[in-house]
């Protein structure tokens, strides 16, 4: 192994450095520099160090309330998600039944939907004039919980199901042979063994709910504010930048801490998984088992499909009858005066930004993955988490950091079209890395050596060996970057100039306006966005070559 490394190091040091500089430079300018800006704003007014803003916020009763609310809503949301997902995970991990894969895919779709679409869907389902008549949960805490469970259900489901089906059957059998009743087997053996997986998924869900933005902003209304929403309100409505910076700093530190716990647990999981294949799934035989499977499948179908269905129905019903009026309206833009940008332009902006994000994310992601793979174990293990950092930073803090630092020399991008795709790339390229890295590491060195001994230049080796093998993984990453960009809301709301508004921003503005036509158009744009993301996700599911742990 060492010998090969030496050969590689000797072969082409300059391109390797250049390749490494692409992702590192990008992160440095568009991630660490804005982060530094937030830090600076928090402690300095002008050039003078001051703890005043920090102390102001720390002693504010309102802020204490917001922080407390952020914590407990995330806590309750996580608990509810676990309660719904764990019984389903039991069924999914232990029984074999028809259409199981389909059900799993269906359950995952909510997670890939843009948050603003989730928010719109729940408004369509249970909001004012929602599909479910008689209940109006708009601007209620119940609505926030529902949306959070809907969105995060599959995180717990997938992680625990994956882990559970790798638990060896003999563990339970060994316990039974030692006299444990089925109940004791579950509580003394299965549950303790599942604990790291449950904990890891719970932490992930907690982080997501903790930094939830679109759902709280839209469904909670003015009555509810989390740290994330407050950053936006302080910065965009009250222009209190130092205050927003301090809140961002709090948000960053907290999510980093949680992410660190999560990755530590993840490592425990991978070392904890016994080295065996998944155990044999049981066929569904008894009435009790049939009932369990039926209720699991029924729950997933109803819970995951109803908000999405409500959204589509609401977008297609105009004045009590089926009609495409809202969709037509989008492209006519009679009410253009209300908006900074017409819906057609928003669609166009979204597509252009998504294409740009795709290109940027693929280039940076592939460079990052190559760098991790080629720098060997020690440096690679250090670089890998650094490239993942943007994922641990909430979209709103990213957006906020960018607007307070990149709006003046040395780097003034305030009016640049590229600002939005750059922000989207920050969030998208780590996924390209995750997708490409396993593929790139799977290429044996001997393959490249064989090609070069056959006379291929380094560039041609890369083109003829690396690229074809990585192609599937790159495609999956690219599609992800594209759909992610289409749905990104938090950062875009911050940084997109009015003329560069995207579809999610348009939905948010439509939802904020009174009138059936605005509401209907919000539903129509959301439906379109939902369709595109769902299709993109299905495409990735069919295409991806890496393992089951997609989170």
């Amino acid at each position, binding site marked *: 192994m060492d010998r090969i490394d030496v050969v590689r190091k000797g072969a082409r040091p300059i391109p390797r450095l250049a390749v490494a500089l692409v992702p590192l430079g990008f992160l440095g300018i568009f991630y660490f520099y804005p982060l530094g800006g937030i830090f600076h704003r928090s402690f300095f007014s002008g050039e003078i160090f001051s703890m005043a803003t920090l102390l102001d916020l720390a002693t504010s009763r309102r802020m204490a309330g917001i922080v407390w609310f952020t914590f407990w809503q995330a806590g309750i949301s996580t608990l509810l998600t676990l309660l719904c997902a764990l019984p389903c995970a039991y069924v999914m991990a232990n029984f074999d039944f028809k259409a199981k894969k389909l059900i799993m895919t269906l359950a995952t779709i909510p997670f890939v939907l843009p948050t603003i679409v989730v928010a719109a869907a729940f408004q369509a389902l249970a909001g004012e004039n929602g599909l479910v008549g008689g209940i109006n949960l708009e601007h209620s805490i119940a609505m926030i919980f529902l949306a959070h469970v809907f969105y995060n259900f599959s995180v717990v489901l997938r992680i625990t199901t994956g882990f559970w089906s790798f638990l060896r059957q003999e563990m339970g059998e060994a316990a039974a*042979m030692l006299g444990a009743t089925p109940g004791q087997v579950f509580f003394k053996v299965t549950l303790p063994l599942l604990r790291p997986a449950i904990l890891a998924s719970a932490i992930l869900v907690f982080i997501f709910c903790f930094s939830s933005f679109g759902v709280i902003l839209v469904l909670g209304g003015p009555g509810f504010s989390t740290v994330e929403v407050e950053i936006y309100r302080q910065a965009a409505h009250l222009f209190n930048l130092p205050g927003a910076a301090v809140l961002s700093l709090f948000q960053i530190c907290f999510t980093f801490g949680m992410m660190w716990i999560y990755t530590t647990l993840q490592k425990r999981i991978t070392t904890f998984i016994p080295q065996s294949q998944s155990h044999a799934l049981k066929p569904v035989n008894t009435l009790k088992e049939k009932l369990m499977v039926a209720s699991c499948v029924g729950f997933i179908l109803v819970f995951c499909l109803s908000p999405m269905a409500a959204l589509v129905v609401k977008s297609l019903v105009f004045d009590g009858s089926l009609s495409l009026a809202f969709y037509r309206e989008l492209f006519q833009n009679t009410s253009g005066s209300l908006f900074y940008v017409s819906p057609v332009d928003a669609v166009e902006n979204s597509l252009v930004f998504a294409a740009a994000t795709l290109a940027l994310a693929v280039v940076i992601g592939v460079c990052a993955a190559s760098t991790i793979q080629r720098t060997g174990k020690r440096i690679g293990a250090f670089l890998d988490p650094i490239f993942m950092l943007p994922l641990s930073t909430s979209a709103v803090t990213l957006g906020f950091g960018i607007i307070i630092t990149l709006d003046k020399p040395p780097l003034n991008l305030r009016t640049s079209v590229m600002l939005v795709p750059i922000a989207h790339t920050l969030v998208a390229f780590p996924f390209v890395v995750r997708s490409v890295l396993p593929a790139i590491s799977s290429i044996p060195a001997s393959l490249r050596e064989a090609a070069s001994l056959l006379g291929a230049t380094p560039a041609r080796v890369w083109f003829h060996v690396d690229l074809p093998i990585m192609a599937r993984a790159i495609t999956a990453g690219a599609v992800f970057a594209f759909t992610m960009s289409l749905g990104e809301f938090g950062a875009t709301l911050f940084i997109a100039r009015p003329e560069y508004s995207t579809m999610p921003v348009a939905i948010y503005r439509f939802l904020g306006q009174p009138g059936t036509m605005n509401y209907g158009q919000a539903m129509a744009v959301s439906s379109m966005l939902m369709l595109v993301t769902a299709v993109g996700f299905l495409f990735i599911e069919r295409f991806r070559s890496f393992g089951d742990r997609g989170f």
Partner: protein
Amino acid sequence: MNEFVLKNIYKSMGAYGVLEQIDLSMEKGERVCLLGPSGCGKTTLLRIAAGLEQPDSGDVIFRGRSLLDIPPHKRNFGMMFQDFALFPHRNVFDNIAFGLEMKKWKKSEITDRVHGMLELVDLEGYGQRRVDELSGGQRQRVALARTLAPEPDLVMLDEPLGSLDRRLRERLLADLCSILTQTGVTTIFVTHDQNEAFAAADRICMMNNGRIQQIDTPESLYANPSTPWVADFLGFQNVIKGRRGDDGRVEAGHATFIPKQAMDDPKRTMEPLFLLLLPDAATPVTPEAYGLLPNNRIRGVLVDRFFQGSYQKISMNTEAHGRLVFEVPSTLVLPNPGEPLFLKINPRGLRVLG
């Protein structure tokens, strides 16, 4: 009364075929080994005995009582799994204590018992170790201690040495046997390795394709394999086809053999059968001496000979029976490969197979 009985068990094993007509009785304290190639149904049979699987038909009887309605956790049987299935979230002590906790033993009794078990398996001082810090051999002993700690009425061991490397196996097998002997527990032991079975078992139950082929003590199994398959599995190479003749004779090719062993049913003459020639049954003779022998003789061409220390292995081609392999003393002078070879066969070295 038999301690443990498997009675006329049938069980479909999916892709592995079926278990058919399994009958096996065990005495108290007896150690029976299920021996056969992988996929022969021995593990399935073990799981049926444990209650982890239900037979399609037949009965599992312990001390005169059917166990079919009793779930595994109420049978008070112990089972050691192939890769030990130690609980990774519990340390060595807590693994061994698990069965005792399930039986609601008192804390102090549990501590005493676990320490006793650790001593028995020679792992004193290992109680607080994590399971993943142990070597393969240590894990095996922890698994054994965990299985034996709750004083099970019957112990089942599924390939107890299967996941260990060869050198370790021989030593651990001896330890395992001495521990089992000390506790005197009735044991069913599954293996595909005949040396293990010979060393560990009071009786061996040979299985193939879901059926029992032969149940016997190791000595009589080796001395009298009852079918060509058993002979083949035990490594015997010289099985030749023949027919039953008169007066306990066997006609094979143009030769006649008269085994020392009595034939069970002399009436069914001309019935086809198999004859096993034990590897040490042959003595080389001169062509003249060969000519004087009325029966129990073989001639052929020497193909190869291999020096093996105290004996040499000879491989010969015969017109009548194909390739045969024998072991003869190294001191004998043999013809060169390619030359004819004449053998006298000792009637004690002949076995008629069903």
